[in-house]
């Protein structure tokens, strides 16, 4: 009889998609939340409100904002970005400037909005010589005037972090509202909303924060109000026919995901204690990985041409001669036990500028939980595949 394939040690290298394992304490916090008796009035666990407020407090520190009520907790970053685009009240003929680095969670709601707002113009600015935003092209786009400038802070394909302050300075000079997608940066690089001139910041709990899926972050600066995209029950003010207007309730309709909030709180608490050493470890291991991949004949590391001073989050995309990315992913996973992502990474526009269209890349994204043996195993696997 044919013998079954030898079991492999699985090595997880896909933290840019979903941080794994969950930060210590997260699973336990979620299990405890799942066991809590719901409050008779709100229908959610008694401590859920406490978890939400604790999350807001931690996020306010991370975002450098004084008023935690300006932070709404959503069902995810996609939910938050839909709230942004549908809530900004863009008029016919509005102009949105964005970039080719954007994720589909930004691009698709914009596309959908474009089918409903007559004459909506969306200008995606290309990559500059540093691999982030072409500032010349951005300024040219802004000369036409812009209502919104939306920016992916850190590319989930290249790992490069854009100079958001420089982009948003130009945006502000043109009178635009600024939207920052910090899904791939929050937890690893500073995301101080005021410093970066970001009116709106969106993030998620399940990537670099190593929290659970099902929870997103939507910060809206004082003085800017989004029209609620989703209205309904709030567990309070049942006498009101209209949805309560004050933040964060304004953008938090429906029963909150109490279990996920408990998990996010635990993740944020852990990050506050360990983030200072854990984050540099992830970046250090990714540097080793990037350099090692670049030395393998037949391997091209994407975005490696970036200037050394450009900040990066811990991920590296690459292509291997003779292997389609999808095949590469199959081989890495099934023959070598390496779990990574391949393809376009939900960022379809960036690949033309990177020379990786139409098939995309393979992507390793280690974390602070990835150890040196994992890095060496990844490099050895790619050496064998390239050889």
């Amino acid at each position, binding site marked *: 009889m044919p013998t079954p394939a030898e079991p492999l040690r699985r090595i997880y290298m896909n933290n840019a998609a979903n941080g794994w394992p969950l930060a210590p304490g997260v699973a336990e916090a979620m299990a405890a939340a799942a066991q809590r008796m719901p409050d008779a009035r709100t229908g959610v666990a008694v401590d859920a409100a406490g978890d939400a407020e604790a999350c807001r407090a931690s996020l306010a520190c991370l975002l450098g904002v004084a008023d935690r009520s300006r932070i709404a907790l959503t069902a995810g970053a996609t939910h938050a970005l839909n709230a942004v685009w549908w809530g900004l009240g863009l008029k016919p003929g509005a102009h949105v400037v964005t970039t080719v680095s954007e994720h589909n969670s930004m691009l698709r709601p914009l596309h959908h909005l474009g089918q409903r707002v007559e004459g909506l113009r969306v200008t995606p600015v290309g990559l500059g010589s540093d691999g982030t935003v072409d500032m010349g092209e951005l300024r040219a786009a802004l000369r036409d005037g812009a209502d919104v400038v939306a920016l992916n802070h850190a590319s989930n394909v290249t790992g490069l972090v854009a100079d958001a302050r420089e982009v948003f300075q130009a945006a502000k000079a043109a009178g635009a509202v600024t939207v920052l997608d910090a899904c791939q940066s929050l937890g690893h690089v500073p995301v101080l909303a005021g410093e970066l001139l970001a009116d709106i910041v969106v993030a998620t709990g399940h990537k670099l924060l190593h929290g659970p899926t099902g929870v997103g972050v939507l910060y809206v600066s004082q003085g800017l109000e989004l029209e609620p995209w989703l209205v309904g029950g709030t567990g309070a003010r049942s006498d009101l026919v209209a949805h309560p207007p004050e933040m964060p309730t304004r953008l938090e309709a429906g029963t909150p995901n109490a279990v996920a909030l408990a998990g996010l709180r635990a993740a944020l608490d852990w990050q506050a204690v360990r983030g200072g050493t854990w984050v540099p470890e992830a970046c250090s291991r990714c540097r080793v990985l990037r350099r090692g991949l670049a030395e393998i004949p037949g391997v091209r590391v994407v975005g490696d041409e970036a200037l050394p001073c450009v900040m990066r989050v811990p991920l590296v995309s690459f292509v291997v001669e003779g292997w389609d990315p999808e095949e590469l992913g*199959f*081989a890495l996973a*099934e023959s070598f036990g390496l779990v990574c992502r391949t393809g376009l990474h939900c960022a379809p526009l960036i690949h033309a500028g990177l020379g990786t269209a139409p098939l995309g890349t393979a992507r390793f994204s280690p974390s602070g939980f990835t150890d040196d043996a994992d890095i060496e195993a990844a490099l050895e696997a790619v050496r064998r595949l390239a*050889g």
Partner: protein
Amino acid sequence: MRVHTREVLEDCVDGSLAVRYGMDEAWTRDGIVALAGLGRLEYFAHFPRPMFRLRTGLGLEVKAVEGEDTCRLTLPRNGSAEAERQFADRLAGIRTDDGTKGGCDGSQTAEVL
């Protein structure tokens, strides 16, 4: 070898059809070698879990791990039915009940069959 299940997979890239077959038995070296002649067959016996990839003359791409009872197909945009039928017919003609196990012969490169 016979196909027991056919599962359509969601592909990230270009919407091309990706399919996973569940087979009635696991792949052996003999079973893999029997696919030669359908196109370009590469057998990576030196990988920790040996695998193969096949590109048929009709544009079908097949990958599988030796010892597993599944394989992954990427169908061509045109002529996918014919390409898949050709592969399924070849599978039906493969007999792997001699228990032969493949594996590495010491070489560190792919064997092109």
